[in-house]
């Protein structure tokens, strides 16, 4: 019984990172119609900023230092997103798809090397927050509090985005753009600024995900590659550009992985991709996508 609860929690924990990453990816895709291949590098940027700060701010109380690290990671990744959008991507909106994809691919390569230039090629360990939060016990099981913290943060971030998109003027305009770009423009919505905002928001979410992961694993070059690919799967599965899809997609992928490793350890990764493809064959627009 306790074991099954742990498996579910493991799935939720994995899904939390996926949700944050794919949410950002999905916002950018929905609002701007751009598949941002550099999204994983923004995740990595968040991871490095946070790992570096946790290691540097040893003078502060650990809780405060971690909070600073999280916010700084979001800020840096968000600003980097804004920089990318305004300097590299903005002239591309009218260009063909292959150029848009390639330019984000180029951006990915550049950011990866910028990270290498700034932080060097070695691993950054920053496990303090993980250790300090300690463990909790239930039934016969032990579980790190930090994992629950990650689940909670991701849940809160999801609610915040849902409120922004659903209740604020900006959010409504963003949704209008993602439904019909030309119509939105005709209605006098200033698309340029909102694009920048959406990109910055998506990037900050990726940065947050990266910042949350480093207390459990060292920040390494290329740490963003795998989250990027799995976030793709989530976005495809959930329906391109759908926020609800990102949530459900993350949960599905997270739980499939968790139970897959326990029940069929040999096939975890191919299983994931195969299920995604099967769903797409049956329902090509994704679970919550619109044609």
């Amino acid at each position, binding site marked *: 019984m306790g*074991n099954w609860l*742990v*498996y579910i*929690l*493991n*799935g939720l*924990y*994995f899904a939390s*990172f996926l949700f944050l990453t794919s949410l950002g990816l999905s916002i950018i895709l929905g609002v701007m119609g751009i598949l941002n291949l550099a999204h994983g590098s923004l995740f990595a940027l968040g991871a490095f900023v946070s790992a570096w700060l946790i290691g540097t701010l040893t003078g502060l109380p650990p809780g405060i230092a971690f909070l600073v690290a999280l916010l700084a990671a979001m800020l840096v990744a968000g600003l980097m997103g804004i920089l990318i959008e305004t300097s590299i991507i903005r002239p591309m909106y009218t260009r063909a798809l292959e150029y848009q994809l390639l330019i984000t691919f180029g951006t990915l390569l550049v950011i990866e090397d910028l990270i*290498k230039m700034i932080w060097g*090629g*070695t*691993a950054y*360990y920053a*496990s303090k927050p*993980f*250790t300090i939060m300690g*463990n909790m016990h239930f039934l016969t*099981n*032990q*579980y*790190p509090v*930090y*994992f629950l913290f990650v689940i909670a943060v991701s849940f809160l971030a999801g609610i915040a985005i849902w409120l922004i998109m659903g209740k604020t003027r900006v959010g409504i305009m963003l949704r209008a753009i993602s439904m019909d770009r030309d119509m939105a423009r005709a209605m006098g919505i200033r698309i340029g600024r909102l694009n920048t905002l959406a990109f910055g928001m998506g990037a900050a979410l990726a940065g947050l995900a990266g910042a949350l*992961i480093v207390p*459990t*694993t*060292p920040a*390494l*070059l*290329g*740490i963003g590659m*795998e989250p990027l690919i799995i976030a793709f799967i989530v976005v495809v599965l959930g329906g391109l550009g759908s926020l609800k899809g990102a949530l459900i997609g993350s949960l599905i992928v997270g739980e499939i*992985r*968790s*139970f*897959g*490793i*326990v029940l069929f*350890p*040999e096939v975890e*990764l191919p299983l994931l991709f195969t299920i995604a493809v099967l769903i797409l064959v049956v329902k090509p627009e994704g679970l919550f996508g619109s044609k």
Partner: protein
Amino acid sequence: MSGERLGRREFLKNAGLAGIAVGAAGITGAGFQVRSAKAAEKRSVPKTPIRLAAISFLTGAAAAPFGIPADNAYKLCAEKINSEGGILGRKIDLQSFDEAGGGDSQVKLARKLILEDKVDAVLGYISSGNCKAVLPLSDELGGLIIAYDCGTHELLEEEKSPFKFPKYELGFRSSAHLGIDNIGLALFIEEHFKGVKKIAGINPDYAWGRESWLIFEKAIKQLIPGVEVVNTLWPKLFTTDYTAHISALIGSGAEIIHSALWGGDAVTFSKQAIGMGLFNKAKMAYSRGEPYPQEVGMEFPEGQIICCAGTHYFLYPEHDKWPLNKWFVESYHKKYGKYPTYPCYHAYQAIYTYKAAVEKAGSLLGGWPTQEEIAKAASGLSIETPSGILTIGADHNGREDVLVGISKKVSGHAFPILDPEMMAIYPAHQVNAPAGIRTEDWIAGWKA
């Protein structure tokens, strides 16, 4: 610094003599008779420096625990050799390259180094995948390649025993393969945890992990016949979330869990496992776990079984009994602020194997030897290293003793060290298959 005062040159000369004496069997090969006839021709020693390419991970996950320390050790050794007059009077021009980028990039790099840059030897590779991809290039391109750290036992073995050796005329490995780690672990478990009933494995999903588990499983089943394997997990390299794997291991009820996870993966796994309480229920046995206590610090749990990829440990052999280790540990620590880890010792072995082989062949030939002659001289060579004696077998594979121990917090050290009371050394003949026999077949032939 009494090691310095002992006179290292003297020490090495003796080591060299010992090497030639022990390795005499290797020289009697047909090749050398031909060479010695040629030796009458006047040979010269080129004035140019020796160009050695050292290839280790300088970026990525394997950089901090393995690649950078090993690269540091290469530099330390090259400086030492140069300050003592070089090899046959030639100075070493050491160039470091990054091993990152995967097998295909490494094949391209090795081709460039051998064909275009014409280096004298390539000393490299931490990854088993890279070793497998690159070592065959030695004979293909006619360049000397010494694999120095990778563990795959398949590298120099063939499909069926007995097999013809050496597999590559110009390809070597100047260290023992992963057989010694995993056989050593099995022997240690038999010695100290004889009553174990359930074991499991969590190993990275590529040659290194798969083969480590294969050898360990075979060996432990030979030594403790009733033991049951309750789970084997194969996480991808650089997995960041092991929670599902840890749950599966806890659920399996294993008492000892074998793992060849390395670097950041080993650290990530250990930390998440501590949090999820795995260590309350099971013990880990890390096949090359030596660097991680230093890497993780005091958080690294006590009581874990750790193997050292040989006898490479900064506290063994004891410094007063083996001054070479004292010299190595102290000069490394002085220069880089850390203690040398096993890849550093492997780097020493590679560069000094090259040196000893050139000097042996050179002294017989009276001049600078060709690549083929260096290879002939290296086969069967024995040299003294900071961790003891290294022998290069006729199959071009290194043979070493192996050290297994248990992590323990001891005052005066900033990280858990191996409990001096419980260190076990298994001699080379007990953990290495003889040349020409596959390691698996050799284990299968053990008498209970």
